[in-house]
């Protein structure tokens, strides 16, 4: 019997909920021997309740796809999954063609953004150094910002870091809180899928042997019913400076609603010139 691909071995299931040992796109790619897009053209249950599916490959990113059927094996837990006939998927698979709830496969919905597919394509074309999330720099109405997405180590929920430096008052003030419109305002917001944490909750961010402490703030984004962890003031510039010389940020923190965040790594390897541009902007 062949062993399951590594990513499936990371499953941690119980009777109540399926918890996937999550991974970002880079991790999924590295632990899968076959990465490809395909249209699922047919699927059926066998007598044991397992699913067998037919597929037509549309694009290959990795591997030679040494199987002609996709298969699930029922575990009787909430980690059992299904498949939909008709749409195109991005598949991350081992050499058995088996998939599960935690395989990381994604449906491509026509008309919807597919950042992970775009990243796979740019990586395949040699336009990006790796598959970690890209960093984006932009100017808008008197401020500059730097943003990247990241995932925690144990689940697949996407979070993001958004840094902002306001070098001039905006022509069209957006925020009701005046301080957010003042030149010199800066922030680094870590937006996580948690709406409530204790007032004294903190995140420790380690970059280039320096630690920064982001504090929980309920009003990080006015008008939104959720809080975020944030750095502010001089820490923002110092944090951005540290990013220039570090290939990753390690996140430490023990959160009530989002414990899996502890140990998350935010990579800077796919930043291009974005961090440099933000540091230049914040030092103007």
């Amino acid at each position, binding site marked *: 019997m062949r062993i399951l691909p590594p990513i499936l071995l990371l499953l941690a299931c119980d009777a109540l909920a399926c918890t996937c040992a999550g991974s970002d796109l880079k991790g999924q790619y590295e632990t899968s021997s076959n990465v490809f897009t395909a249209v699922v053209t047919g699927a059926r249950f066998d007598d044991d309740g397992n699913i067998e599916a037919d597929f037509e490959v549309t694009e290959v990113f990795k591997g030679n796809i040494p199987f002609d059927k996709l298969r699930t094996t029922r575990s009787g837990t909430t980690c059992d999954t299904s498949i939909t*006939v008709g*749409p195109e998927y991005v598949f991350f698979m081992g050499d058995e063609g088996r998939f599960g709830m935690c395989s990381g496969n994604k449906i491509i*919905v*026509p008309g919807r953004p597919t950042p992970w597919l775009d990243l796979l394509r740019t990586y395949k074309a040699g336009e990006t150094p790796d598959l970690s999330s890209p960093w984006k720099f932009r100017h808008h109405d008197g401020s500059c910002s730097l943003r990247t997405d990241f995932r925690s180590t144990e689940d697949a929920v996407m979070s993001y870091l958004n840094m902002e430096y306001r070098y001039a008052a905006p022509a069209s003030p957006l925020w009701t809180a005046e301080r957010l419109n003042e030149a010199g305002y800066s922030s680094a917001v870590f937006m996580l899928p948690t709406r409530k944490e204790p007032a004294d909750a903190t995140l420790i961010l380690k970059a280039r042997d320096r630690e920064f402490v982001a504090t929980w703030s309920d009003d990080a984004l006015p008008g939104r019913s959720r809080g975020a962890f944030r750095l502010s003031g001089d820490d923002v510039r110092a944090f951005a400076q540290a990013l220039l010389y570090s290939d990753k940020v390690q996140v430490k923190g023990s959160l009530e609603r989002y414990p899996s965040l502890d140990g998350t790594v935010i990579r800077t390897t796919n930043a291009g010139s974005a961090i440099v541009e933000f540091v230049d902007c914040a030092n103007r």
Partner: protein
Amino acid sequence: MRKFVLSLLLQLPVAALAQGTTCTCDRDELLANIRDAETIFYGSIQEARMDSADSDTILLTLKVSDPIRGKRAGPVEVSTTLPHSCGVRAMLGMHSLYVVTNDSEPVTRCGGSGSHHYRQGHELYDLHNLVYALITIEYADSDPQMVRSWLSRTFSKNYTRREQMESFFGLIGELDTETIITVTENELIYRNLVFVFTDDILIDYFWKGQT
């Protein structure tokens, strides 16, 4: 006593959202299709395959878990279209409502098929109880236990608000145009089914003549 009045909101066109694809349906046509359908059931997909002759068509083999109208047993074979053409999502094992007009017509979300109970857009909100409404209509007289079992999944005593029940029976009134639904200060009555309210909260429901 006042005659039940349907909300004007129920007359608006609906947009069925599923799997990220918008499918704009005419609500009146959807309900008319359900009224006229030969076969309606709640079931799950056992096999699905794209039609080799038409890449926009998916052939489904369905297991009937709860017959509602018409065919009562055995696997049912129907066709649907891809989601962007308002077809039913062909996810293996997924339970959905199936409204079959006739064997040669594909089942579609605009025909009433699909998983309406997944609330995916406010336009659909009043249809998210469609399967419960159909079960209530078809079994109110013959199998109160079945209706009770289904309704208990979505309406709770001491929790459900009167306006929710009135919305639900507004939908029933559109599907069952021959039965008069009466609403009193404390009760909503449909055939022998009586819902009792206190302070606009559902506190009980029962069948007249049954304990």
